[in-house]
């Protein structure tokens, strides 16, 4: 059976609508799984309609490619650790970018063979290649940083911005030249430069900014798909590309706002590189006062008779794989009639919403997990706040110390709880390199040790102790 062009267009429309419903499903955890199903159905329709169209005549390579992709994708999805989600996402972004480049060049070869090239088409091809190539190498670098294959430190050198600008201009100029002349050399050189630009754009960005970078590359991968849609005159690709592009852009915006930084600041200025204030800063003064440390038993003593305990998890919790122990602690406290809530800062973890997934993996119900704006008024009524592997996101310096690099960043107001127990491995500062003023507050005590061991110790004490 062969689908007519009009029928195919209708199938694409159905597919586009299903994708919109898929995203709409993520409005609430209860509808999200159905949304994902809509997405799968939409994709199946899109692929089916394309294969049944008149343009696709040979199937050998296609079947091989789809099957191999299904096996590899299925294994990746089944095996990946939730802590490693950001790496998987970065890898998948790079695939979209590379696929867009390959499709654009393949289209060029096919159209050239059929003598069907024109300047508009070649202009669109250039856009597809440039965006796709930047997405590819950018995502590869992001993957390397997340996986620890290359240093997460910002790589900076003099004249970096000038160099990037020069590469970008040269890439664009080659794109225009290619569109006007159809020169294969321009195309090749432009592709090469765009690959380089992806590297030089992402390499100066530090590990702490990964949530923004993941979102930004997510956005790029959407724009790459949209550009491919323009090349192929395919409205489905254009619609989906726009949806994904905007999704990533909005996430980048949310992440930047949660760090009180502009996207330009993230892209063009590495974090933690600035001078962290003079010796007279509040941080330095407080440091002289020293900090209190507490034992596991002290913390348990306060928690077991509390009405409400708020736990602030950070990436450190994931690193020490403490989320399952945290779940046990929650259950033990719940059994004693203590209300336990989790407070999530938008940039906690290595990608947007990362902590939520890690808590969900540990079987912590999502209605116990709250976002910053929801939970902030509740800290004042909490008896105990337990900070597990978070740091900068609870630092009051963001509100009080104008000289602090994180000044102005919205924070979780952990310090308003009656007692704050800060689980820490050492006195090392957070990602921003800023000293945490919360350590020195009167109601704060530090519990030193590995987060997982400490929480397990608390669980044992709660089980054993029958005060």
């Amino acid at each position, binding site marked *: 059976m062969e689908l007519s062009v009009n029928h195919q267009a209708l199938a694409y429309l159905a597919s586009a609508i299903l994708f919109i419903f898929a995203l709409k499903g993520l409005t609430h955890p209860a509808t999200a799984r159905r949304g994902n199903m809509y997405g799968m159905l939409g994709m199946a329709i899109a692929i089916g309609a394309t294969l049944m169209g008149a343009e696709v005549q040979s199937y050998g390579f296609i079947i091989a490619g789809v099957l191999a992709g299904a096996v590899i994708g299925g294994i990746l999805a089944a095996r990946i650790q939730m802590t490693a989600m950001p790496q998987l996402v970065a890898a998948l972004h790079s695939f979209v970018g590379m696929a867009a480049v390959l499709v654009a060049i393949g289209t060029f070869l096919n159209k050239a063979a059929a003598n069907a090239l024109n300047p508009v088409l070649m202009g669109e091809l250039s856009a597809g290649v440039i965006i796709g190539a930047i997405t590819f190498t950018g995502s590869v670098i992001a993957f390397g940083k997340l996986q620890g294959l290359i240093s997460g430190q910002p790589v900076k050198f003099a004249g970096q911005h000038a160099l990037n600008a020069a590469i970008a201009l040269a890439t664009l100029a080659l794109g225009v030249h290619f569109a006007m002349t159809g020169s294969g050399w321009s195309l090749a050189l432009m592709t090469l430069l765009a690959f380089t630009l992806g590297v030089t754009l992402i390499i100066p960005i530090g590990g702490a900014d990964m949530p923004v970078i993941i979102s930004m590359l997510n956005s790029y991968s959407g724009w790459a798909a949209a550009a491919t849609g323009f090349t192929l005159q395919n409205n489905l690709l254009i619609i989906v590309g726009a949806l994904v592009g905007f*999704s990533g852009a909005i996430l980048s915006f949310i992440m930047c706002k949660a760090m009180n930084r502009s996207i330009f600041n993230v892209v063009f200025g590495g974090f933690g590189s600035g001078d962290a204030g003079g010796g007279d800063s509040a941080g330095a003064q407080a440091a002289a006062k020293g900090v209190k440390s507490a034992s596991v038993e002290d913390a348990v003593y306060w928690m077991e008779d509390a009405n409400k305990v708020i736990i602030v998890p950070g990436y450190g919790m994931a690193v020490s794989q403490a989320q399952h122990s945290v779940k046990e602690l929650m259950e033990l406290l719940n059994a004693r009639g203590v209300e336990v809530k989790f407070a999530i800062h938008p940039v906690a973890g290595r990608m947007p919403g990362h902590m939520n997934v890690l808590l969900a993996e540990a079987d912590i119900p999502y209605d116990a997990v709250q976002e910053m704006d929801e939970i902030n008024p509740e800290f004042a009524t909490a008896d105990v706040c337990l900070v597990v592997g978070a740091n900068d996101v609870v630092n009051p310096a963001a509100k009080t110390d104008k000289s602090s690099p994180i000044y102005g960043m919205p924070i979780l107001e952990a310090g308003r709880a009656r007692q704050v127990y800060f689980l820490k491995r050492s006195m090392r500062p957070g990602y921003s390199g800023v000293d945490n003023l919360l350590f020195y507050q009167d109601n704060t005590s530090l519990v030193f040790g590995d987060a997982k061991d400490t929480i397990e110790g608390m669980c044992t004490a709660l089980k054993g102790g029958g005060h």
Partner: protein
Amino acid sequence: MSETLLAFYVFVLACFIGYYVIWGVTPSLHTPLVALTNAISGIVIVGALLVTGLESAGTTAELMGFLAVLLASINVFGGFLVTHRMLSMFKKKAK
């Protein structure tokens, strides 16, 4: 109106849909959102199929198309399945 301009219309309107739909997504599902958008941006597979399946496609174009099909297919399957796996973990409090 030229075909390209029509495509541009579609693009701009789709941007508006994207804007309003994405702001509605709950922050707790932002990781599944990234994974799902990843899966659906695997829609470039349609372009890859068109390049590969063209009867007159030369060997180079066919090979490029095959690679593109493979990569996009990893995205589609990997993206949807991992999103499903994550969403299955989100549970309400058992009462």
